[in-house]
């Protein structure tokens, strides 16, 4: 495994992304909209008698959600772009291995998420006078499992793209959001019906967001939730990465050209 190749590829994806006006709009507009809407909801909650930190909880939660979504989207969209640009054969006729390619998606997702946190910190200070990073370095504990969950979901989406081809391109925009209603990003899990709570127990993000809420409101780490969150995220990541590799090997045997058919 040659990490330099992954870094170069990640750089290529980032350059391609940040020189297109559509992608810049995507990067700026949606997080900005989320922060304003959910900051507003947090304000409404705080005014109706809930703790004043609800504004911080709402904003930090939607920023963390974007961390997960960006780590997902960078991976999954990179693969779709290569499929649509009929570039898969070109790419893998070089010495590049599939795992190096997967790592490039992970790196570009990480870099985009980092840029997002910096942008979101500025926006929340500007609109709500809240300094996101004031919660301290403890916040980093929550970022890592969300990144891993995003990568796992992206790998699952890549498996489906390899299975169904370019026709399934909508999955790239849909799959990331699929588990969000079950993750308790915006509300506490107890509000949901019991059958949804059962589903949410299998979703790593539900533990992470629950721990994040406890961290901001009560200023303590919920180690139990964090352990479940990390454990599940890593478990899904290992399974989906393995599935992704198997599926790519199968596609390679069948002929990579099959992935480039529209």
């Amino acid at each position, binding site marked *: 495994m040659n990490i330099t190749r992954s870094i170069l590829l990640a750089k290529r994806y980032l350059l391609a992304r940040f020189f297109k006006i*559509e992608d810049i709009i*995507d990067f700026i507009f949606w997080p900005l909209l989320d922060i304003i809407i959910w900051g*507003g909801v947090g*304000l409404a*909650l705080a005014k109706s*008698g809930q703790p004043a930190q609800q504004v911080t909880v709402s904003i930090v939660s939607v920023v963390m959600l974007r961390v997960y979504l960006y780590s997902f989207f960078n991976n999954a969209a990179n693969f779709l772009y290569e499929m649509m640009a009929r570039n898969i054969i070109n790419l893998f006729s070089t010495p590049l291995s599939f795992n190096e390619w997967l790592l490039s998606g992970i790196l570009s997702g990480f870099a985009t998420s980092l840029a997002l946190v910096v942008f979101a910190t500025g926006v929340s200070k500007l609109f709500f006078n809240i300094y996101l990073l004031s919660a301290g370095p403890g916040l980093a504990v929550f970022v890592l499992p969300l990144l891993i969950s995003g990568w796992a979901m992206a790998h699952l989406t890549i498996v489906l793209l390899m299975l169904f081809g370019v026709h399934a391109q909508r999955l790239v925009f849909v799959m990331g959001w699929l588990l969000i209603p079950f993750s308790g990003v915006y509300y506490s899990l107890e509000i949901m019906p019991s059958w949804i709570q059962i589903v949410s127990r299998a979703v790593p993000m539900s533990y992470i967001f629950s721990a994040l809420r406890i961290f901001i409101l009560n200023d303590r780490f919920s180690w139990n939730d964090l352990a479940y969150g990390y454990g599940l995220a890593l478990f899904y990541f290992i399974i989906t990465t393995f599935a992704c590799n198997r599926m790519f090997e199968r596609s390679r045997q069948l002929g990579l050209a099959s992935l480039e058919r529209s």
Partner: protein
Amino acid sequence: MVNFNRIRALIKRNFLLTFRGIDTLTDFFYWPLFDILVWGFTGSWMARGTSNPDLAVIILSSLVLWQAVYRTNLDVSYNFFSEMWSRNVINLFVTPLTIQEWTCATMIMGGLNSFICALFGMTAVWLLYGIFIPAIGPWFLVLFVSLFFSGWTIGLFTASVLASYGGQAQKLIWVMGWLFVPFVGIFYPIEIMPLWAQTVAYCVPMTYFFKVLRIFIESNRIDFWLLFYGFILSFVYFIIGVVSFIYFFNRSKQRGLARLEDA
């Protein structure tokens, strides 16, 4: 002179094109269901800590009303973009079809699609939360149809930009509708916003309609003044939207419609 047969034919064609493939399923059902799940639970959670038991009803019915804006906007702007994308603008307008007829057809199509989305949304809300939105009464329908004008106006402005700048501006199709959401009081009352944001909100007609709904659910009365302001603003913006779209389209026609088809 507007020819209704041509409008009917365009609606039929768009309807057939819309309801095929997985894209329709995600646009019509996945995203509205996602919003209903997220905002329904958020509303229930918010209501738990407040003295306002109607909060979940307000948020969910506002969300269903929002479909009237979002779908009509998307249908006008996206249909124009898809004609550009499939390099069909010249084919379409070398026929006797006029831009006025095309605009009428997509506006009607947007209205019909909004009803489909709203019916699905109301059913989902009823099944998931036991809230029967039609019980709000005929005023809900009045507000729903009134919001069509806002959606059409946003769609026409977006289509004007597309007619001027071509496909480069395609991102606006998905962005423009949501641009107004933080200001119009769908999810929270506009009074909690800073003064500058409230000033912006009062320039947007949707704000008045969502406020009328909020007041009606909370105190069972219709504020006719708010409704009147909403209508006047909607109508003024709508006229400007129609005129600007026809102006920019005709300007593009003079320069050559082929430039709109360059990807």
